[in-house]
Structure formats: C-alpha cells, structure tokens
C-alpha cells in the first residue's frame, strides 16, 4: 500500500480524515483545558501567598 492510496481511503479520504482530525482536536482540547486551568490556579494562589506575606 502506498501513501497516496492510504490518504485516499478508497475515495473516502475527506470523510475519514476529517473524522480523525476532529477526534484529535477534541482530545487535545480535553487535555489543554485542565492544564491551563491548573496553571491559572497555581499562579493565582502564588500571588495570594505573596500578597499576604507583604502585608503585615
């Protein structure tokens, strides 16, 4: 099997690869969401700790 046949998927390439691409987008979004939330949260909590140290 060559690369062209693989990408062509018997004529259904556009359908098959858009489905797999969409799956990739959904999986990546699922991973990014908690990662970004975690960084935001840790930054926020670190800021709060710093503030409470500076104010007597």
């Amino acid at each position, binding site marked *: 099997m060559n690369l062209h046949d693989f990408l062509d998927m018997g004529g*259904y390439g556009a359908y098959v690869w858009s489905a*797999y691409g*969409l*799956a990739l987008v959904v999986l990546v*979004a699922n991973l990014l969401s*908690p990662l970004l939330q975690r960084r935001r949260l840790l930054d926020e*909590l670190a800021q709060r*700790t710093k503030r409470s140290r500076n104010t007597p």
Partner: protein
Amino acid sequence: MLSFFHRLASPKYFYGFAGRALPWLGIACLAFMLAGLYQGLLVAPADYQQGDSYRIMFIHVPAAWMSLFIYVVMAGAGAVGLVWRIKLAEIIAISSAPIGASFTFLALATGAIWGKPMWGAWWVWDARLTSELILLFLYLGIIALHGAIEDKRTAARAISILAIVGVVNIPIIHYSVEWWNTLHQGPTVTKFDAPSIDIRMLVPLLLMAVAFKLFYAIVVLMRARCEILQRERNTGWVRELVSKA
C-alpha cells in the same frame, strides 16, 4: 482494602494519588491508541459494502460508548455524593460532565461525517441520533446548572439530581436501534451471540475503546486535581504546595 478507599476519598490523599497515577495512565493510553490506529487504519481490511469509509467507526463507536459510560459514572458519583456526602464523589461527577459532553459531540459529529457518504444525509431524526442529541443537551444542562449556583456543595447536589433523572435516557439510546426502525444500524458487538464483525475490525475497535476509557480516566483525574486545589485553597497542605512550587 476498605481503609484504602477511605483514605482515597480524602481530597488531599486523592490529589497525590492521582498525580502519581497520571504518567502511567498516559503511557498506557498512548500505547493502546497507537496500536488501535495502526490496526484500524493499516491492518483491518476494507468493508465489503462501505469500503474504507467504515474506518470512521474506530472513532465514532468508542466515542459513543464513552458518551454513555461517562454519563453513568457521573450519575453514579452524583448518587454517592448525595447519599454519603462524599466531597470526592461530587468532584468526580462535575469533572466528568465536560468530558462526557465532548465525547457526545464527537460521536454525533463523526456520525454525521460517516452518514453523509453512506446515507446521503448529515443528519436524520431517527431514534438513535435524536436520543444521543438529547444526551448532549443533558450534559450541557448539567454544566450550565453547575455554573449557575455559587455554592459548590449546593451545585453538586443540584447536578447530581439532574444527572440521576437523566439516566432514563441511557437505555433509550442503547435500545433505540432495536425498539424503533432506525436508519442507524443495529448492534454488531454487544449482541448475545457471537459479534457479527470481522476479528480484524473488532481488535482495533476494542483497542480504541480501551484507549478512550484510559483517556477519560486521565482527564477526569486532571480536572479533579484542579477542582480539589480550588476547593481546598485555604487549607494548609495547598498553601504548602503553592509555596513550594
């Protein structure tokens, strides 16, 4: 064993436990997914009716299974939270909702992409598709309801009740292809007699299903860890963790 679960239910212990489990789950998920993709895209033969378009199944079916599985986990965790007031159960319930919604969306969208070349239509209002769409609305309703209530404990109770009521939709989705005449095909794997699917197609399907389950485990643990940090922000161990980071 029981004392292990007892300890695990404490948010602080769970936070550490989940953090240690995540890398292993990640490796296992990646391994299953790569094996599934290899088997599904390169090894499995073309379908005698649908040609290569059926390969969408390796995404579509596991995503649809996950949409139901996550809903049941969410409602189950919600019920445990309601009865025993276990914080961790509430956290698992609300952390599951966005993941379930995303898998439901993926099942519907890949179904539409598959439906166009095979049925000639992106969408038909048949029982399977309609009940799955209702599932998406249930997930979105649960997320919205949770966002609308300020107090976390009250919000958890409200979404748990909604989730439990919505469980009625799960058997409807599952049996829709048997109860009604649907354009959507009937089950080929979960039949009581031998599955009517070629073994070379069944293997990648099951590999992808395991990969998706592991993926859900990973994301729900990541979300739960965030939720725990948020809720426990004023406790000593979170302050210590932040000052070390």
